[in-house]
């Protein structure tokens, strides 16, 4: 099926994108990222307390992370009721796994965002999997319909830095990263959507992230 045809096909297994989807107010607090001695180490301290079973510390951790967690889950899952469920699971998982957090493997928000994105993607894919249990995996990956491509890449971003750095990417890099991260597509699906060869998409995802990383000055 050509890309135009696939764009026209509705994506039945996802909830329709309602107008009121973003009724939650954007969170405009300073982002809890590892400032030299600011938010980052505070969150690490909180995480250490949470690992010892401190529920007050967990409540503070929740306040710092819930917006990011819920935001990315809603972005990928779309359906609000399901997103709330997934975001809840993620937050409870942070409590459960607190002792497994290792600062050298990344900041607390990075860990939380990774868990949240993983769960959101799993939710979307398992819904698709159960709808398609009968089909062969390879066939399924090539048959998944796509729509809203134009919209997919026009992600509304609250962060000026992310917007600016996104503008520094090539079109293909930006689409590859955005479709995968914000829409939860596999790289095969991204390749199909953008009608680009698989190795190209693999490479664009990596060099796109490298460019974003450098633009944002991310160390770990």
């Amino acid at each position, binding site marked *: 099926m050509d890309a135009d045809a696939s764009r026209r096909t509705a994506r039945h297994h996802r909830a329709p994108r309602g107008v009121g989807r973003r009724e939650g107010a954007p969170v405009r607090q300073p982002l809890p990222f590892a400032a030299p001695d600011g938010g980052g180490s505070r969150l690490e301290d909180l995480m250490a307390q949470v690992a010892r079973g401190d529920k007050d510390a967990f409540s503070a951790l929740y306040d710092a992370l819930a917006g990011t967690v819920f935001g990315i889950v809603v972005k990928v899952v779309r359906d609000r009721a399901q997103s709330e469920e997934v975001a809840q699971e993620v937050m409870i998982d942070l409590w459960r796994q607190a002792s*497994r957090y290792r600062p050298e493997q*990344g900041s607390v928000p990075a860990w939380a965002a990774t868990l949240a994105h993983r769960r959101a993607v799993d939710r979307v894919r398992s819904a698709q999997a159960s709808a398609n249990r009968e089909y062969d995996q390879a066939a399924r990956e090539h048959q998944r319909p796509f729509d809203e491509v134009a919209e997919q890449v026009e992600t509304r971003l609250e962060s000026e830095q992310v917007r600016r750095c996104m503008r520094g990417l090539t079109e293909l890099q930006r689409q590859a990263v955005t479709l995968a991260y914000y829409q939860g597509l596999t790289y095969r699906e991204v390749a199909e959507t953008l009608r680009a060869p698989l190795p190209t998409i*693999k490479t664009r995802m990596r060099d796109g992230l490298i460019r974003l990383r450098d633009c944002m000055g991310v160390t770990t």
Partner: protein
Amino acid sequence: MRNEEDLHTLTGAYALHALGREELTAFTAHLAQCASCRQEVAEFGGTTARLAAAVSTAPPPRMKDAVLHGIDSVRQLPPRLPADERPRTVSGVLRRKAGPLALAASLVAAASFGGLAVWQHQQTEEAQQRAQGTELRMRDLTSVLAAPDARTVHGRTSTGAVTSVVSSQRQDKAVFVGTGLPEPGPGRTYQLWYDDHGTMRPAGLVDSDGATLLQGDLRKASGVGLTLEPAGGSPQPTTAPLMLLALPA
């Protein structure tokens, strides 16, 4: 088939959670041996976290209440034990890892089994299990290993780890032993399954090498499987099995 360089370019797709099942398995195994890939993946994690923060949305206030209420009945995982010694053989695993402390830790990890869906239905059961304590579970594990009718099957996972399953019909239990399992990766865990002639029944989580008593009874299971699942486990397998061992009839 794939060379190392090919695998290395998958760091981006991996960080975006855009790999399919097969590539994920191959890349996860590669990651365990590739320090520069891990570094890059960690940096990409910091990068994607900003993409997440850029779409930050305040959740409804009731969610916090639900979460704070929810954690009351969720047991926290114990810290991961240092993997300073990596036993090479299955007997080595049993000898070294079955020391009471390591064993207790892996049993507690296994006991905290359960996706949240399962968790909701398990609160009562878990309270009972907690009362019975780890000691009983250790006794279960050793009684399977020592059972006169214990049978052992061996196999390798698709990632090359050595696995064994010891089962006892009389005890109606089975023990899984893994050696050389790569780190499951952030937000992932290994999950065991009883194969009831094609239907997979959750049998607990495994985080690292060692001996683990499978959750639930053996019943008429025809095999034991292992998959990689999102942290907390899944009610049904969401990835292709890394290993599926047929049990002796």
